[in-house]
């Protein structure tokens, strides 16, 4: 089932790529069909996770090269646990949403949807791979569709932004690959479960260097200061759907990598550097929030807010305890739906106003009450209002980190005040004020595909906010073994 989940979008991409020229318009429907089925599979995988079982579930496994001949196996292995299941669900949700918000794409439709589906496959592969080499394969696979989608369908300086994105990620992944090879060759296996069970005690190079080699790639992806500058450029110039995928799931690859690979395999090193991680996290939260306040372009504003919000993920990680790690996992999911929705809102507005400059807009609530409602809910979710999903995640992070890093936590909690500042400032400028002549002909968000995408996200934001156990029971299942390993290394 997991293999089907991972490769179904790729099959859809192939099918679209082979469409005859005169059937181009069908690409949308094929993409919708495949992403919808993938989403349903994601729900099924999430719901069927056995809460009593330990370890990975729904494992698909075969060996390319057997261990007997070579000393280690080159293998294909997929599995989920409580850590990856929410991200699998998130990938399905945002994959579907990104197809829906792309409904009006007219340029090179076939290619566009093929790349979009391939992107979904690569991300799904990252979240389910249980082998370092395979993980790396999917990690790199994601670059190709991203580069194409930003540089061809982007706006502004798409080639610059796409290349910047590519170079940052590749620089990180080169280091990561080096780290993986050192680990794998030392242990004689690239199997994540095996490495977790028997982590190497020493290697060719000191493990602390290996730790930084690997985590560098993940910190770039999160991203945190000082390796965040690719993010605003990539977001601003990317088409809406790509921003949704980028903020919603691609950034989570970083946090996921830390939780899945760095902490379980190098717990001692993680403990050694926890204070540095906490400092980076707190600085990113505040630095990102202050920069967000400075933004005048709506999309850049949401992008910079991600730097601030992903700082909470790292803060939760740096606490090295069960509550903080759970908070980090929750924050990844929650930020995915909230920021995904914010990008959808900005995209829907851009479709109508053809501007993203905050100073150009005013009083849009008169023309777009429904979109305004969605924007306000998403905005309040982003500033951590209780009863919406962001609060639960941030609260768990703070509860986990206050004892471990009091100063970093207090600084980070202040981020919620700044978040209120930039969110409410933007809402005030864009939506309130007298009706503007210039926008009098504007329509509200009433197209079915827009409504479907926004409603799907809202269900998760409100559902998890009001009844967090929908998510937390699964997260707890996934975090528990990681927390045990990390705490044992303290």
């Amino acid at each position: 089932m997991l293999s089907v989940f991972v490769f179904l979008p790729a099959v859809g991409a192939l099918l679209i790529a082979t469409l005859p020229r005169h059937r181009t318009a069908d690409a949308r429907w094929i993409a919708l069909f495949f992403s919808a089925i993938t989403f349903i599979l994601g729900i099924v995988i999430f719901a069927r996770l056995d809460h009593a079982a330990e370890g990975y579930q729904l494992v698909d496994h075969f060996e390319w090269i057997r261990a007997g001949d070579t000393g280690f196996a080159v293998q294909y292995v997929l599995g989920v646990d409580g850590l990856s299941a929410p991200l699998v669900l998130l990938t399905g949700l945002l994959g579907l949403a990104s197809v829906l918000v792309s409904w009006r794409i007219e340029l090179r439709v076939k290619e566009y949807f093929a790349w979009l589906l391939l992107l979904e496959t690569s991300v799904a592969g990252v979240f389910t791979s249980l082998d370092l080499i395979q993980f790396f394969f999917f990690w790199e696979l994601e670059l190709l569709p991203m580069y194409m989608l930003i540089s061809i369908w982007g706006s502004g300086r798409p080639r610059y932004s796409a290349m910047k994105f590519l170079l940052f990620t590749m620089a990180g992944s080169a280091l990561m690959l080096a780290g993986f090879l050192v680990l794998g060759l030392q242990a004689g296996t690239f199997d994540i479960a095996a490495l977790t069970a028997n982590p190497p005690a020493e290697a060719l190079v000191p493990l602390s260097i290996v730790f930084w080699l690997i985590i560098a790639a993940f910190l770039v992806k999160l991203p945190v200061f000082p390796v965040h500058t690719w993010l605003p450029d990539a977001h601003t110039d990317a088409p809406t759907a790509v921003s949704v995928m980028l903020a919603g799931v691609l950034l989570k690859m970083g946090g996921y990598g830390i939780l899945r690979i760095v902490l379980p395999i190098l717990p001692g090193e993680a403990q050694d550097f926890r204070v540095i991680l906490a400092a980076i996290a707190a600085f990113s939260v505040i630095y990102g929030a202050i920069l967000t306040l400075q933004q005048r372009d709506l999309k850049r504003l949401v992008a910079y807010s991600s730097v601030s919000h992903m700082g909470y993920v790292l803060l939760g990680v740096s606490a090295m305890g069960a509550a903080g790690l759970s908070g980090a996992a929750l924050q990844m999911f929650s930020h995915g739906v909230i920021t995904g929705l914010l990008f959808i809102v900005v995209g829907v507005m851009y479709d109508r106003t053809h501007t993203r400059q905050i100073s150009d807009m005013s009083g849009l609530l008169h023309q777009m009450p429904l979109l305004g409602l969605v924007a306000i809910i998403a905005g309040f979710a982003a500033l951590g209002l209780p009863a919406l999903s962001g609060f639960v995640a941030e609260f768990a992070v703070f509860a986990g980190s206050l004892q471990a890093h009091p100063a970093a936590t207090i600084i980070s909690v202040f981020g919620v005040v700044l978040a209120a500042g930039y969110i409410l400032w933007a809402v005030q400028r864009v939506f309130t004020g007298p009706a503007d002549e210039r926008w009098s002909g504007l329509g509200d968000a009433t197209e079915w595909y827009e409504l479907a995408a926004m409603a799907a996200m809202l269900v998760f934001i409100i559902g998890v906010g009001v009844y967090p156990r929908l998510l937390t029971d699964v997260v707890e299942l996934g975090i528990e073994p990681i927390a045990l390993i990390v705490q044992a290394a303290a």
Partner: protein
Amino acid sequence: MLLGQVPEAVVWAIYFAPVASTLLITAGLIARRLFGFAFHDAWAGRLTILAIFISFLAALWALDSSIGADGEALGFEPHLWLNLFDLHIEMGVRIDGLSAIMAVVVTSVSLLVQIYSVGYMHGDSGYARYFAFMSLFTAAMLGLVLASSLLQLFVHWELVGLASYLLIGFWFHRPSAAAAAKKAFIVTRFGDFAFLLAVLLIFGKTGTFDIHEINELALAGALSSSVLVGFTLGLLSGAIGKSAQFPLHIWLPDAMEGPTPVSALIHAATMVVAGVYLIARMFPSFEAAPAEVLDLVAYVGGFTALLAAVLGLVQTDIKRVLAYSTISQIGYMVLALGVLGYVAAIFHLFTHAFFKALLFLGSGSVNHATHTFDMRRMGGLRSYMPITYVTFVIGALSLSGVFPLAGFWSKDEILLDAWKYDKLLFVIGVIVAFMTALYMFRAIFMTFWGEYRGGEEPEAGHDDFSTHPHESPPSMAFPLMILAVPAVLAGLFALGSDFTHLIEGSLPAELRHGKPSIEGIVVAASLVAALAGIGVAAAVYLYRNPASEAVAARLGPLPGIVERKYYLDFLAETVVVRWILNAGLQRIADLFDRYVVDAIVNGIGTATRLAGDGLRRAEAGYVQAYTSLFFIGIVIAVVVVALLGTDVVSR
């Protein structure tokens, strides 16, 4: 006790009835927008009133049971909300004397305000949206009051902030309303930041969020005094934000941009006293903390009461007079808590809710007739609006603490507690009492006496404009008359000791003090202060005594400083936000990000490209080619290593 013990489901109904009306109205509005569903505006008002009426009845039943239990908590088990390792969060309802009284205050004032709103908001294009927000507010406020865990209280604390934001900015086409809404939310968030840290701290130390357990642990001495200081100061900061105490009071006067019934319900009777409620709820922790904490509470309250009362004197907008009065009166309640006047604080909260809601609704009624809040455009309204006039005067007399109205009794209890605890605070209290009477009767003389000065043109979309002001419709006049009853009579609870008994029932037995004994000098001082205030107001504003102008001239720059609100808004909005944050930090961070962080990255990129120029001919420059080469390289590396075995590398 008239009825049997209230079942838990009925207590929950207090909360869930307005939750349901919020959801129904929202669903109706969305369905109307999307599918053309015929959702009539009038339904929104009726649904809200019905829901809050249900809450009111259920709250009365809860109060009845609470009286039967002598104010001690009824035993309801909490329910699991979230269980994440140590993070075990439960939600429950706690009914004791304190929460039962609060629930009745909230539901009764809310009910009357909603009835009033049917008339006041009639014809407004956002009529249904208004009631959706009002339902939301009432639900959140009741959630806050009934909460058995501190986190649950915090959750609803934030949700009332949301409702307040939405309602202050209700007329979002007015830039001033939108700005005021934002300001209210952000300023209170500074307090909430400290409140959140307090919740996190106490959870870290005790492993529980349960209000009762935390208080027990604090009293039992299980928490170090530094933890208790941090915890209570965090709570106090939250209260200072929400209850508009110095220095975070600056949001409340601006919040008057919201519709007047909103000001009456949220920014006078209920939400802004949530800070007082919070301190009362956690009172055992405050008593267990070092005594300096309660001293600080008392002086924050006393200072705010004085500062705001002075500001109330110079306002020309009738709602702003009431807003500063509210800040001042909440300062009184906070002062009372600081001098161990637990019962007095809640008693004053109780009476204040009625007479201040009455005054706000009265100002709304005046606005309905004149289309302005500017008292310089009013005058002479007593002959046009007799019901509004009489009820407004009743409210003002009660607020001023004139015997035997409600405000007299509750103010007197606070002054008694202050007298016993700290004479300086007592003196401040008496001065504030004098100034309260002064600014209230100044407002009455400016609004209702003299000649009518014409009002203003109504805003488009409102009622027809007539040259003569007229009495408000029955749906507005009726709540005024109803509210006048408790504004007169609510003080009678002070006569026996039942009320004290009920409220103190929610405290552990060792913290109950009973009723303070009456001191003649205190009663006399408070009465003289009130009557003197009214007398001075009459002399200056009714009879235009020339001595008053001479006095004003002697004050030098003081009135100017007061009129500029002591420059506190300037400090917050211009110095902190515009200079330090916008022009300072944001600018520096932005330049740093662009010209340092990003420039380094681009520099590395450029250097790499220059180095790569020589190799360029070997490559076509396509990313696809790079990527595929990259993969091929990896595969080769892996295969080579696989074939040769790990020895190659590890050797």
